[in-house]
Every structure is written in C-alpha cells, then in structure tokens.
C-alpha cells in the first residue's frame, strides 16, 4: 500500500473529536487510518477492507504497543463504497475510542495504550485525506 498523509503533533485531548474526510479510490481494496503517539504506538489502527487479506467488506481494528500488534477486533458494519467521499469521526477517553462511521453507526475500541493525547495520524492505502477537523 502506498504511504499517505502523516500528521504529527496534533495534540488531540480526551473528549475532543477528530473528523477526517477523504476520497476512497474507485478500485479500493483497503485503507488504513492509524492514530496514536507515533508509528509504533497506535491506540487505533482502523482498517476497512473491501477485499484484502481474505476479508470482504469488514472493518479490522487493532492497536500497536511498542511495535507489537494487539488482538484484532472485527466490526461487521461496513458503510463504505469504492469511489466515494467518506467521513469518519473519532473521539477518545481514558478507556475507549469511539468511532462514528459515515452512516452514523458507532462502535467502541478499547484505549489499550491509555494515551492521554493523540499526536499522530497517518493514512495509508486507497484513501486520500482532504479535510481534518479537531473539535
């Protein structure tokens, strides 16, 4: 996968919401949003798979602590389509991250790293970030 936009020193605090809007490529197989402290310490690896690694239309989430992946979480909701503009909102507190999908569906993923701020965001795969807001 091609390496996409990387943002650092975001200083996103608990209770704040990160809104990311971007374009999913027409032939998209998979894309990734990584959030955390840096590339080796991710409180959220958010990976919608249209058709990748044996998964079809599934969101795979995970965390990475000191370079080591945690246990995968699979979310059955999949409101994404290739060739469309999508928006995802992510907020967090000490215990969980809350992800709001484009259709309004929400789910939680545990804040396993207990991060007190999110400073790093990276996009990867078949997705191009056009807009970010910190609220």
């Amino acid at each position: 996968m091609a390496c996409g936009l990387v943002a650092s020193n975001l200083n996103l605090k608990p209770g704040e919401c990160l809104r990311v809007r971007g374009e999913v490529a027409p032939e998209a197989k998979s894309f990734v949003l990584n959030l955390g402290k840096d590339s080796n310490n991710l409180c959220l690896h958010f990976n919608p798979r249209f058709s990748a690694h044996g998964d079809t239309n599934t969101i795979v989430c995970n965390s990475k602590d000191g370079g080591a992946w945690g246990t995968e979480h699979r979310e059955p909701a999949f409101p994404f389509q290739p060739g469309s503009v999508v928006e995802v909102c992510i907020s967090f507190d000490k215990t969980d991250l809350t992800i709001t999908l484009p259709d309004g569906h929400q789910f939680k993923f545990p804040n396993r790293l207990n991060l007190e701020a999110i400073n790093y965001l990276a996009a990867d795969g078949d997705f191009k970030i056009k807009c970010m807001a910190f609220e």
Partner: protein
Amino acid sequence: VSFEISNMEMKLGETLKLKGQIQDNRFAINLGRGPDELSLHFNPRFNESVIVCNSKEAGCWGQEHRDDHMCFSQGADVKFTVTFQSEEFKVTLPDGYQLTFPNRLDHSHLSYLSVRGLHISAFKLK
C-alpha cells in the same frame, strides 16, 4: 513543537484552508517539500507589526517579502487560505486581503506543511 503534515498531495491550482487560534506573538505556516525546502514561509510578527514571507531552498533562506497589512492579533481565531499556482502563492487573510508571494522553487507538487504558534482546528485541501 509544531503541527506537521508530510506526504501531502497538494497540486497546482489547489487551495489549502487552515483554521486555528493564534497562540503566540508570532506564528508561521510553512509549505514545501520538507523543513529545508519551503516554497512558502508565511510568518506574521506582532511585535514588528509585519507579515514576513520567504522561501527556503536547500536550507538557505531567500529574500524576505514584508507586508504591513496586519488584520489579526494574538489569541484570535483565524482562517487563512493558500492557493498554489505555478507563478505565485495567493494567501487570503481573515479580512479578505490577498497577499501574493512568487513560487520561486518552481515546484508543481507540495508534500509538506508545518505550523507553529497557531493551534490548528481544521485543515482542508481542495
């Protein structure tokens, strides 16, 4: 510590919108290909009441442009837009005033953004 974006894909003709709050008595928005390769360094300084623009090539600053149109102050919520054209950058200030700065490095694609002294609340590329 500054807000930084790398691997951005800003092409000629595109416009970057930034919203934020001014934290310091000077701030800077840098656009280019990396910290030592800046096509646009936009640097308002309140103590001198001037907006300094410059470019940086291979780590060396170019010739400064100074503009005294200062329409914002420390603590203010502001919005800037930067349009990237082959000849020049057009920076629109919060009151609509437009400042231009030549595209000296002649790049057609910018991948790096850094911002210091301004707490960013929104980033938009169009």
